[in-house]
């Protein structure tokens, strides 16, 4: 179900990540980036672009069709200008999405680094925590926390971040597990480099690309989850303009005034498509074919192979 898109399936490769160059985005990736940028721009510039106050009601002209009574995209049940609400409505999904992704991503990455590097009991504890987190259906967890833990944007962000971190954790952990046996990490260790520096300089850059891809795809998950929770009445609060909320409020009007629910839904889809396109593109960007050597008869080579196939 869409509230809960899966952790992105980027299979971690063994071996060092190629140094990330400035991403070259072609075709679909560019479309995704443009869509995201557009939504961000709209969110920021909403006050300049919106023809009306998004909260101003015109009870005499409720559910006006696009173009009627001088409302370009019509009005909703309370006679509020739909266009203005659509413009302002980008703010919450984007803000909540981005902040939740940053929080969840940072948390998951950090724990994944520690877990993969330290191994042993710390790894066990953290991995079990991630298991527990994954075993809880996240929609229900969110329902639970938001129902009883109070409804606020902060809690919403927290819940979305909380349900997102295991994806980062698992990917980063498994990548770090393979990176930590890379000769360059061992070289640092034999030279007496302190652990935190190894984590920071040798391992973090190695997972950077992976985290970036995960985060982009996670953004779409976060946005969908925000919308889903809002749809269930637990996210953004009326009278705020928020796309998920607008769909929820307007869905009763589908037969009479379809635009009230359909347009915000389309905006939401556009935002998610943007994030997904960009994420796919980043994930699909294969490192240029590096000269792959035949590493002769070494246990190291076989071990490396084993860790990729397992």
């Amino acid at each position, binding site marked *: 179900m869409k509230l809960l898109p899966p952790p992105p399936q980027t299979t971690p490769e063994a071996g060092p990540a190629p140094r990330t160059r400035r991403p070259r985005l072609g075709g679909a990736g560019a479309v995704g980036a443009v869509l995201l940028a557009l939504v961000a721009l709209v969110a920021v510039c909403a006050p300049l672009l919106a023809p009306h106050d998004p909260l101003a009601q015109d009870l005499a002209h409720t559910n006006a069709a696009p173009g009627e009574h001088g409302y370009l995209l019509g009005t909703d049940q309370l006679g509020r200008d739909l266009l203005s609400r659509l413009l302002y409505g980008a703010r919450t999904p984007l803000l909540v999405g981005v902040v939740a992704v940053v929080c969840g991503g940072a948390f998951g990455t950090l724990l994944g680094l520690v877990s993969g590097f330290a191994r042993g009991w710390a790894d066990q504890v953290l991995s*079990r925590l991630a298991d527990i987190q994954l075993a809880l*259906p996240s929609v*229900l967890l969110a329902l639970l926390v938001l129902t009883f833990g109070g409804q606020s944007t902060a809690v919403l962000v927290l819940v979305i971040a909380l349900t997102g971190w295991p994806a980062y954790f698992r990917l980063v952990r498994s990548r770090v597990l393979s990176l930590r046996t890379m000769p360059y990490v061992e070289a640092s260790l034999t030279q007496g480099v302190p652990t935190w520096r190894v984590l920071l300089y040798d391992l973090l850059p190695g997972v950077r690309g992976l985290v970036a891809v995960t985060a982009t795809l996670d953004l779409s998950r976060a946005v969908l989850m925000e919308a889903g929770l809002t749809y269930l009445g637990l996210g953004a609060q009326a009278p705020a303009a928020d796309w998920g909320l607008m*769909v929820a409020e307007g869905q009763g009007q589908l037969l009479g005034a379809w635009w009230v629910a359909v347009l915000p839904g389309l905006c939401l889809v556009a935002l998610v498509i943007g994030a997904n396109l960009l994420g796919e593109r980043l994930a699909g960007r294969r490192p240029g074919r590096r000269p792959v050597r035949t590493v002769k008869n070494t246990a190291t080579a076989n071990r490396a192979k084993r860790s990729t196939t397992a």
Partner: protein
Amino acid sequence: MIRFLTRRLSLTLLAVWGALSAVFLVLHSSGDPAVMMAPIGAPPEKVAQLSHALGYDRPLAEQYFSFFGDALRGHFPDSLTFQQPAIEVVLQRLGATVLLAGVALAAAALLALAVGLWTGSREDGGARREWPMWVVFLAQSVPGFYVGVLLVWIFGVRLHWLPTSGATTATSIVLPAATLACGVLPPLARVFRNNLRGELARPYSRTGTALGMSRARVVRHAAYGSLLPTVTVLGLEAGALLGGTVIVESVFSWPGVGQLAVTALQNQDYPLVLADLTFLILAFVLVNLIVDLLYGVLDPRVRHEGRGPR
């Protein structure tokens, strides 16, 4: 194998216990359900009396230990709203959810295989072969509730083809299952497709061709290999699927445990919430356990080394 199973099983139980504890604590620290139970106008003494009778005035720790103590002995308290053992309520509705999730999963899996084979088996794809992936991509970017709302509007209200809610006729399942499948299909299709591509690029596929196999035969062998990661994702998707039933069942008034969880939460029916979540969590871990075992059956390497895919 036995040791692997016991280890896996105890970790599973640990996760279930952890998840349930988390739920219990959030739930029971968030208020007294007696208020919801008492009829309108009931004086405070009556409410307090009720709360005492139900044991919600005890310290949290005491409630916790008595709950898990009873649970270990297989005894769960009665549902507050349904006034019968919560487990029985859940059991009576489990069938509907299993049916819905099963149909959705089966449909999604078959479609994913079809899409994956169609788009992944040829190297010279082009737009003519790629379009199903774009449909899948779109499905991935649309919020589940939005799909549900649109499907009801189109097929139920406008076309009168299919029932819009409940589980009354054989066709009732079509729309909810389709909505649910829409959520699970994209990750499955993509993993299968990408892995099919990957397996086809692996040396053994080239060996097949070199030995004189037809393309179809090579693809068939590669498809078998791609089933493994697909099955893993399926296990992870089980969580999303179960979460999805919560929303889909609500949108389509499908009488399953997902909808039950929502109403139980709404009614502050703590015993029912816990019983319901126990089943959802168990279902999730069970599916993953099965996936692990299935992995052993499918992948000879795992079979002989006796360890799980993760």
